[in-house]
């Protein structure tokens, strides 16, 4: 039993309850508590690198192969997610210290933020289907509120659309869970994979279709993406960064992959569905992004497109494809967070998000400009930045799997991404300064620190694909997903 596993959820939950209690009169205390919580989580996540384990909550060990309680599972895939979530959360809370000076009710902000992180970590670690649903809803509800945190017209409307589609997704997921329970009598993913057996009935495909639609809504895959381009830009910048950076990945893609691979069983049919959804998302996302003027909206569309790459990697079903997909997921979390924080800094300094009104920010905001350039090159897949390596290996994996058509679409998507970001960089940072850019000055110290930290990660994370680290980390993670029903043996014993 790894005693540290429940603490991953208990600490942010405790922070979520405590911050509104003690921090209402003292905003600085909220900053301190929020940052310390996230730092502690990051340290804990680093301390479990290379470990694996199962934790049965309440001490209800499985008896004769019946999973009695809820279990927390740390394996390769959940470790990747855990590290991503904790790193990004810490960087974002660091950034929020000064950014959130523009908003009131800091205690509510940090409370909701901690609860959202707790929800995401809960989704990552849980081995129980219904528990996954509960934590998914915690993270979702916190994110609904955070999208509307500014309570302006646009934010409220975006939040309403988000909450409605999010609830539909949740209802679909819960319905599917109920069908699976009706078929197997178990909620534990390992127990389900044991009980489902090998003869799928039509009802089983119906349930899986509901899972794909439900998680697809949470992950904003095309054609379930309509809420994302409104919701992500409307939120305060740190929250946009969290939503695009980790929330859609954890609640959508990771949860979908976990359920499909390890609980209900992956079949070639489902892999094909994922391939199609992934390719559609790549193309639709990037084409819509090209037509935008709003810097955060552009980034939001790119999130859809980049998630397409991850799903494409997973849909290949090969070890290399899944590993590259997870690598891209991690990289995307870093550079998309950085891009949204850059956008937040620009908005903080100039008061606008329309990049036609900016221009010349390179001299006014050197740190923002430099980090944004790194992130843009990273997302467009320019070597030696991290985005290049993960996209390259997704394409390599597609070629290895003899899916040449999908590989070609991925290349085209990458070129269009480059075009879109060249336009953005030129208009915002290089052209002649416009009205809004003249008064701009560089953002305060913590915001700079957070952006520089993420930029450094963008450069260094390419190293994670070095053979030894890759073998021990990403391949291990891909193995834990790909081995499918073997998963049950690790958890329930023979």
């Amino acid at each position, binding site marked *: 039993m790894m005693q540290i596993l429940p603490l991953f959820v208990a600490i942010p939950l405790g922070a979520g309850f405590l911050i509104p209690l003690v921090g209402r009169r003292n905003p600085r205390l909220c900053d301190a508590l929020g940052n310390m919580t996230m730092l502690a989580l990051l340290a804990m996540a680093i301390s479990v690198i290379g470990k694996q384990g199962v934790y049965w909550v309440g001490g209800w060990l499985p008896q004769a192969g019946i999973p009695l309680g809820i279990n927390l599972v740390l394996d390769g895939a959940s470790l990747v997610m855990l590290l991503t979530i904790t790193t990004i959360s810490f960087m974002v809370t660091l950034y929020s210290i000064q950014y959130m000076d523009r908003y009131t009710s800091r205690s509510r902000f940090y409370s909701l933020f901690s609860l959202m992180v707790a929800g995401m970590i809960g989704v990552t670690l849980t081995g129980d289907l*219904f528990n996954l649903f509960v934590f998914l809803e915690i993270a979702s509800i916190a994110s609904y509120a955070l999208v509307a945190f500014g309570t302006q017209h646009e934010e409220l409307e975006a939040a309403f659309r988000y909450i409605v589609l999010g609830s539909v997704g949740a209802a679909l997921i819960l319905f599917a869970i109920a069908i699976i329970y009706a078929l197997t009598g178990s909620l534990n993913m390992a127990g389900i994979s044991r009980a489902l057996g090998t003869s799928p009935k039509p009802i089983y495909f119906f349930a899986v279709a509901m899972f794909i639609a439900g998680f697809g809504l949470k992950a904003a895959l095309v054609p379930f993406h309509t809420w994302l381009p409104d919701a992500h830009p409307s939120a305060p910048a740190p929250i946009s960064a969290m939503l695009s950076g980790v929330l859609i990945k954890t609640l959508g893609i990771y949860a979908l992959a976990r359920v499909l691979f390890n609980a209900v069983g992956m079949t070639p049919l489902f892999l094909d569905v994922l391939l199609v959804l992934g390719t559609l998302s790549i193309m639709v996302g990037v084409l819509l992004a090209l037509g935008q003027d709003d810097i955060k909206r552009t980034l939001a569309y790119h999130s859809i497109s980049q998630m397409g790459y991850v799903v494409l990697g997973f849909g290949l079903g090969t070890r290399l494809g899944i590993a590259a997909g997870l690598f891209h997921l991690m990289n995307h979390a870093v550079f998309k967070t950085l891009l949204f924080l850059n956008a937040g800094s620009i908005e903080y300094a100039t008061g606008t998000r329309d990049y036609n009104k900016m221009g010349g920010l390179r001299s006014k905001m050197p740190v923002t400009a430099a980090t944004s350039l790194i992130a843009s090159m990273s997302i467009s897949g320019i070597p030696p930045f991290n985005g290049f390596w993960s996209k390259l290996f997704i394409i390599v994996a597609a070629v290895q799997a003899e899916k040449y058509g999908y590989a070609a679409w991925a290349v085209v998507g990458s070129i269009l991404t480059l075009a879109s970001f060249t336009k953005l960089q030129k208009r915002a940072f290089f052209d002649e300064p416009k009205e809004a850019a003249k008064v701009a000055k560089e953002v305060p110290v913590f915001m700079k620190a957070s952006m520089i930290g993420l930029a450094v990660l963008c450069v260094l994370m390419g190293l994670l694909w070095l053979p030894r680290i890759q073998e021990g980390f990403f391949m291990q993670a891909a193995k834990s997903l790909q081995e499918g029903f073997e998963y049950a043996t690790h958890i329930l014993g023979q």
Partner: protein
Amino acid sequence: MLDLLGIVILFTIVAAIVAIEMRDILGVVIAISAVGTGLIIAFFFMLAPDVAIVPIVVEVLTLVILVKATLRPELKTFVGNRDFFGLMVTVAMLLVVGILGMRVFDGLPRFGVPVFASAPNTPGMYYVTNGLRDTGAANIVSSVILDYRAYDTLGEATVLFTAVMGAIAIIRKTARKAPSEPEVSEWQD
């Protein structure tokens, strides 16, 4: 072969359609509480007193909130659907999925013969057999929600807490301020 339970569910469906299609907002609120009532009766029929007691009280509170939130003299009622073409596409899609779903639902274990009792080694059977011995609670549902699956209940309590935090954040009077301004209280009393 409709039994009493089937009739209750049919009643619920009719009430739901009325709630969604009705013009008058007060009527909508009354119809939705009829849906809730149907649900509660169905829960009682299906021997779930623990579950039934919660919606009864929740229903009252929701009703009060909805009535207060929606009933105001100046409120304009309107019938509103999205455009006609979209409506037709949606209805067609739902019909296809619904008909498909109904055929597919035959694959479930027959109603009233749950899998937990017939399949070997299900957690449900274990709880019913050993719940009292393991946890000391005579109410097995209590022993499930607060002992075997207490972690879920922690999540559930957190969901409610999150919703309250979120509602406070959304309803608060001022959301933005200049960086130099001090914090303001969010309570308007």
